[in-house]
């Protein structure tokens, strides 16, 4: 980016393609303000209409670029203004999420509380002051206890997120989360975590079980779906003929029941953690003493835990996705996308290391520049698609001809360059004859037709023909040019008159 300004390049990525289409289970609507400032719908993914949102949010605040979020009824509403380069708000993303599971809790709580208020007032008045105080104290303690637990839970998830972002290993994260879940969910005594990897759910953490033993078992999508019908499932001994994740009636499951402490389990909560509409993990939380140990409070806490952890998983998945794409980009920046061979950049980086090694070990290095003959004819006769296939075949053949530590790169078009370590004139001659024989083998271009191509090869050696990579490639290129002109397959740079313009 230094020096003369040549222009600029941009990549446009669609927000619609990129992430809005990925949201499967949430109602979302996006509206965009046109030039007159009126909203218009671009994409609606579910039932809510534009008016559901525009009536709720403060339009002036949105136009000033303020993010707004709040809860109304059974939904959370989020409005995120998007700014253009000048800072003007040109669009707003509205998102609506169903939080019925939380609101239902609220309603139940309210109902319970209203009833309790009235009942306690009457009972308190009718019976004794002492009873009233005791009862009140119980409520107060219960609420305080509940508040402390939720606070702990929130802190735990926050802590895990921070630890993950600092680079903590995922396995430790699951173990930590499981321990926190057992600590927070009332009457939980043990449990295990299964995480989906390569299409199979495998045990990655356990408390009260032998993880090494559990690690021998895995379950597929169908098996898990049979067992887990909703986000939080409560299972009690006696209610189900098959129990726990091993409710699946297979030999494998039965065997896993024997190895686990399954017979001891009295009741269990199975939490399905969902991210982007898919079950990504299962938390089994168990009690070994009482089949009615898990009450409404325990389930409520478990459900809240599952929704927090779901969000954490979405973030973790995003991080993984970025990492994966970064690696793919890294690969593409070093390889030719057509043949999969290293490109000029990788050749340069790797070649310099090879030359440094050769200098230290006093070895020779051969650089061979190959230009395919008759390739243009194939392209003109059979078209570019078959021409590309031919290049792929040549690329594969060259890659098979060289040793693991040597390099065959595609420089563009029908030009390939080989860099062979510890190779002198006689070795080069034998080796390049083999390369030519390999290239000249017929290539099936269609079901009926084979084509036969060859190559002109120019060869240069380190250190005789050049001491740096650029000079060696230029020398090999100019030798190849001579070979092409003379119509011979192979020429060594030293056998040319050295007057070929390397900058041609």
């Amino acid at each position, binding site marked *: 980016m230094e020096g003369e300004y*040549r222009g*600029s390049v941009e990549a446009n990525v669609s927000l619609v393609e990129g992430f809005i289409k990925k949201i499967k289970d949430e109602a979302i609507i996006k509206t965009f303000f046109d030039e007159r400032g009126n909203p218009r719908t671009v994409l609606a993914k579910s039932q809510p209409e534009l008016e559901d949102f525009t009536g709720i949010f403060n339009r002036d605040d949105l136009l000033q670029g303020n993010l707004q979020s709040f809860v109304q009824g059974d939904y959370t509403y989020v409005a995120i203004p998007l700014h253009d380069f000048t800072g003007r708000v040109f669009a707003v993303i509205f998102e609506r999420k169903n939080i019925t599971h939380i609101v239902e809790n609220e309603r139940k709580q309210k109902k319970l509380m209203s009833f309790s208020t009235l009942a306690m007032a009457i009972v308190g008045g009718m019976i004794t*002051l002492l009873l009233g105080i005791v009862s009140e104290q119980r409520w107060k303690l219960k609420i305080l206890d509940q508040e402390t637990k939720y606070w702990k839970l929130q802190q735990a998830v926050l802590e895990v997120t921070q630890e993950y972002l600092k680079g903590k290993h995922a396995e430790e994260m699951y173990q930590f989360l499981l321990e926190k879940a057992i600590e927070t969910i009332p009457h939980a005594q043990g449990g295990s975590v299964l995480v989906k990897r390569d299409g199979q759910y495998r045990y990655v953490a356990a408390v009260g079980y032998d993880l090494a033993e559990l690690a021998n078992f895995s379950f597929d999508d169908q098996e898990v779906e049979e067992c887990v019908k909703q986000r939080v499932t409560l299972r009690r001994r006696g209610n189900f003929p098959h129990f726990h994740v091993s409710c699946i009636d297979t030999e494998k499951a039965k065997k896993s029941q024997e190895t686990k402490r399954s017979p001891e389990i009295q009741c269990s909560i199975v939490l399905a953690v969902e991210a982007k509409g898919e079950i990504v993990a299962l938390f089994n939380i168990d009690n070994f003493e009482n089949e009615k140990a898990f009450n409404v409070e325990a389930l409520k806490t478990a459900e809240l835990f599952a929704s927090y952890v779901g969000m954490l998983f979405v973030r973790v998945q995003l991080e993984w996705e970025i990492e994966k794409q*970064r690696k793919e980009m890294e690969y593409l920046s070093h390889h030719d996308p057509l043949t999969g061979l290293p490109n000029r950049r990788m050749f340069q980086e790797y070649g310099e290391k090879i030359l440094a090694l050769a200098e230290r070990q006093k070895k020779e290095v051969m650089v061979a520049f190959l230009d395919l003959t008759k390739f243009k004819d194939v392209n003109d006769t059979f078209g570019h698609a078959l021409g590309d296939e031919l290049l792929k075949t040549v690329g594969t053949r060259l890659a098979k001809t060289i040793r693991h530590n040597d390099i065959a790169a595609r420089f563009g078009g029908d030009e390939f360059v080989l860099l062979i370590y510890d190779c002198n004139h006689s070795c080069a001659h034998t080796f390049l004859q083999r390369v030519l024989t390999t290239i000249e083998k017929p290539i099936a271009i269609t079901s009926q037709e084979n084509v036969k191509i060859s190559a002109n090869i120019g060869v240069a050696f380190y250190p005789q023909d050049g001491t740096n990579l650029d000079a060696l490639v230029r020398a090999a290129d100019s030798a190849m040019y001579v070979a092409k002109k003379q119509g011979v397959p192979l020429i060594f740079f030293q056998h040319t008159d050295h007057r070929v313009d390397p900058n041609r």
Partner: protein
Amino acid sequence: MRSKIWPLLAISVSVAFLVFLLTFFSYQRGLNLLELWKEEYVKSAAENVTSQIAFEGEKARLVVEALLRNREVIEAFTRGDRERLIELLMPLHELYRKELGLLQIHFHTAEVVSFLRTADLSRYGDDLKEFRKDILHVRNTRKATSSMSMGVMGPNIRYTPPS
């Protein structure tokens, strides 16, 4: 006997009222707690969307940085060789479109004139100065910008560095 009923009744009513007040106070605390959950939930939902938007921006940046590392692409652009650039870019355009939801790669000259749009090869040579203030900014500052805009196919995120 009658005189004893009134104090008892008064105590009962007072107790009932006191218990009512205390229970109501606990009830309010319970509701506050639920409000806190909901606030946390909505906050997380907003953060989630914001980080996903940032992620889309990251994709655009990855694409452009991969292109800028590609010497052949840069050389073809410097030479003004559109044909070569098309040959090099179209396979990448297809790949990024499938993998990353890329809409297009767009090259602009130093004069802020469109040089190549991979989404529409027939459209080039148009002057962008009037409506692409972000490119002018890149030219003036020689610094990369990341911006959002409304395109034909909906909103998009673009990343534009100087080359």
